[in-house]
C-alpha cells in the first residue's frame, strides 16, 4: 500500500484516535502514516453489530413469550456466550443452561441472582425485569 492510499474514512475509532499504518513512500521505503479509518472495516463492524442487535431482539421476544429467562437477553446484550458467563459467575455451564429456563430462573435465590447481575454489571431488579440502563 502506498502512503497516499492509506484510507481516511472516518470510523467511530477515528473520532477518538487515528491508527498507525505501515505504507510505502514514493521511493518504496516503509514509513508510518495515520489513518482515520477504512470503509471496508467500518461496514464489517456494522454487520457484526446488526447481527448482535437481531440476536438481542430475538432474545427479548423469547423472554417476553416466557420461552427463556432474562439471562438470555442479558447474555446477548453483553455479547456473552455460556462459557464466558460461566467464567464470570463461577457457575457450571449446565447450571446456566438450566437457569436459562424461566421456571428455574424464577426460583433462584438472591445470592445467585447477584452473581449474574455482577457479571452483567447491572442490578438484580434490572435482571429480573429485563431493564437496561445505557452505560
Amino acid at each position, binding site marked *: *500500500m502506498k502512503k497516499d492510499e*492509506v*484510507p481516511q474514512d472516518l470510523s*467511530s*475509532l477515528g*473520532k*477518538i*484516535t*487515528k*491508527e*498507525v*499504518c*505501515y*505504507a*510505502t513512500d514514493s521511493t*518504496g*521505503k*516503509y514509513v*508510518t502514516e495515520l*489513518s482515520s479509518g*477504512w*470503509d*471496508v*472495516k467500518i*461496514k*464489517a*463492524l456494522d*454487520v*457484526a*453489530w446488526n*447481527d*448482535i442487535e437481531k*440476536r438481542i431482539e430475538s432474545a427479548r421476544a423469547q423472554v417476553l413469550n416466557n420461552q427463556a429467562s432474562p439471562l438470555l437477553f442479558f447474555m446477548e446484550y453483553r*455479547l*456473552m456466550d455460556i*462459557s*464466558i458467563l460461566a*467464567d*464470570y459467575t463461577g457457575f457450571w455451564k449446565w447450571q446456566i443452561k438450566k437457569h436459562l429456563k424461566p421456571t428455574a430462573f424464577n426460583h433462584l435465590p438472591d445470592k445467585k441472582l447477584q452473581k449474574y447481575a455482577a457479571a452483567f454489571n447491572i442490578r438484580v431488579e434490572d435482571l429480573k425485569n429485563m431493564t437496561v440502563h445505557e452505560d
Partner: protein
Amino acid sequence: MKIEFEHRQAAHCESGVTSNLLRISSQGKITEPLAFGIGAGLFFAYIPFMKINNGPAIAFRTLPGHIFNRTCKSLGIPVTRKKFRSTEKAEAFLRASLDNGHPVGCQVGVYYLPYFPKEYRFHFNAHNLIVYGREQENYLVSDPIMEGTNILDRYQLERVRFAKGALAPNGHIYYPEKGADITDEQIKKAIKSGIKKNVRNMLGIPFGFAGVKGIKNTGHKIKKWRDKLGLQKAGSYLAQMVRMQEEIGTGGGGFRYIYAAFLQEADAWLPGNGLAEVSAMFTQAGDLWRTAAVQAAGIYKGRISSQRDFDLMGDYLIGIAELEKEAFLILKKIKWN
C-alpha cells in the same frame, strides 16, 4: 518515583508494547516492525470447531504473549512474567514493579476498556498495554494503538486485567529486566532466528488449518459458504474475517505490511541476502489481502451476491497462499552471509 518512559503509537498492540518496553535498553533500535519480525508475529490459522461471536475463528497473527517473549528471548534479555489468581496480589505486584522503576506490559480484555469506543468492545482478551506510573489511586496507561496516553482507576484496570472468557489474561504482567545494552550482533542474530521461526509457522504446521495451507483451505471453504450458510450468514462470516484481518491499524493487509516493513529494515541490518525483494512480495501480499477485503465488503454490503463473487473471493485467498508460500520458501532457502 518517575519512570523513564515515552509513549509511542504503534500499528499493533503487542509489537508496539514490546518495542516501547525495549526502547531504552535497545537505544531505540528495536522498532515496531523489528519486534514484530523477531517475534515471528505473522501467522494465519483457521481454527476448526471454534466459534468467536458466532462466526469463524480466524487468526492473522500469533497467540498473545509470543511476540514479546520471543523477541526478548532472541535478544538475550531476561523477562519477568506472571499470572495471578488473586486480584490483590496482581495489584501488589504491579505496584512493586512500578516502584522499582519498571514500566510493565499487561494483557487485558477490551470489553470493559473505558477509553475504547463502544463499537470496538468485544470479549477480546488479547489486547496489550503498558502501565508506566501511578498517581495516588490512578494508573498511567500507554496503549500503543492510541495517539495519546490514558488514565485508569484501580477498579477499571483490575477489571480489564481480570477479564474472563477465551484467553483470559489472569492479570498477566510482563517486563524485560534491565541489563546490558542490546548489541548490534544480537539484533542481527535475532532477526535471522525470527525469520526462521516464522518460516516454520507458515510452512511447517501439518493438518492444513494453519500457515499458507490454512489460507488456501480457507479460500476453498469460502467458495462453499454461499450454498452452505446462505447469503446472510456467509456475509457475516466474511465480515468477521475482515475484522480479524484488520484488527486495528494494519491498514487492511492483515499484518503483511508490518512484516514487509520488518524485512525492509532487516535488509539494512543484513544486506546481501535479498530480503528487500522478499519485502516487496509481502507488500504485494498485503495489497492482495486488501483487495480481497474489498471483495468481501461487496458481499456483506449486499452489493454483489453471485456464486462467481464467492469464487473470486476464494481465489484471492488461494492466490495469496501461493504468493506467501513462494516468499517464505525464498526465506527458508537463504544462505545467510
